[in-house]
């Protein structure tokens, strides 16, 4: 849906045509769910939280100013909903020495992740992704899976574009380190 169409639809919803909100639910339910399910790692919780996110979006629709796309705004709500949920559950993640991440070169990471896929690497990467924190999981899901641009991610996470770039670089390096730890190299 084009931004102009979205604005028009939102205007009509605010004027009382509630049923039109189903367009947004239909269009974004899968993307919102897939981001949340990666953060919370549970289908039931993810469905409930996705529903909460849509309900929050509907009740706050009058505050949507249109300075970003509706999907970006919705992802911000969904991300905050999922993060609040995760914070209540204290998940223990493996601690990684920051200095190890700093020593990894960009070239090594770039070459590693551009390798041809093989089953073992995919499995290792899947385990490594599960070990990332909630923000990192959401970040890579939106960047790689939903193809969100850096400026859109900045809006979703409430960060500057530069911060998002740094976090993305750091997350790639962290994934690299986590895989190397599985190989027993670090």
């Amino acid at each position, binding site marked *: 849906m084009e931004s102009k169409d979205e604005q028009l639809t939102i205007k009509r919803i605010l004027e009382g045509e509630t049923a039109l909100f189903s367009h947004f*639910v239909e269009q974004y339910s899968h993307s919102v*769910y897939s981001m949340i399910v990666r953060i919370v790692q549970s289908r039931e919780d993810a469905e409930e939280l996705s*529903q909460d996110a849509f*309900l929050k979006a509907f009740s706050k629709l009058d505050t949507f100013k249109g300075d970003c796309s509706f999907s970006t705004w919705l992802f911000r709500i969904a991300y905050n909903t999922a993060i609040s949920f995760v914070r209540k559950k204290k998940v223990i993640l493996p601690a990684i020495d920051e200095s190890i991440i700093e020593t990894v070169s960009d070239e090594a990471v770039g070459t*590693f992740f551009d390798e041809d896929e093989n089953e073992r690497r995919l499995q290792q*990467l*899947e385990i490594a992704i599960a070990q990332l924190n909630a923000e990192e999981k959401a970040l*890579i899901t939106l960047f790689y899976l939903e193809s969100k641009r850096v400026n859109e991610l900045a809006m979703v996470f409430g960060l500057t574009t530069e911060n998002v770039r740094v976090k993305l670089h750091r997350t*790639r390096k962290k994934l690299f380190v986590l895989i190397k730890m599985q190989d027993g190299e670090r």
Partner: protein
Amino acid sequence: MEKDKLIKQTLKSTQWPPVSVDFQYKTMQKVFLLAEKKRKRAYMLNLAGISFVSLLLVAACIYILEVYFAFSFTLPEIHLTSSSLSILIFSFYIAALVFLLIGLDAFMRRRWQMRNGNLE
């Protein structure tokens, strides 16, 4: 960073069960409920606002009439004798009885309608 095909492939291939088929239906049901709640809240707020403004207007009218037109709102003195008091009590009794019967009638009608509705 734009390439990273291994990460993309892993994210795509990670098998999470898809969102349930009735997700959209269930979400929209809740959205409709929320919309109805919002509508009712807006109605109540409007009603409260209108009532408040109306009271304010009445108060302003009374103030203007009293201050600028020297209009007096003092109630006439009423002297109640024992016979007039018994008539007053009787009138209140009849009024209370009428209200009770009207209320009972409304209650019975609603029950009948609900039972009829349930049977259909």
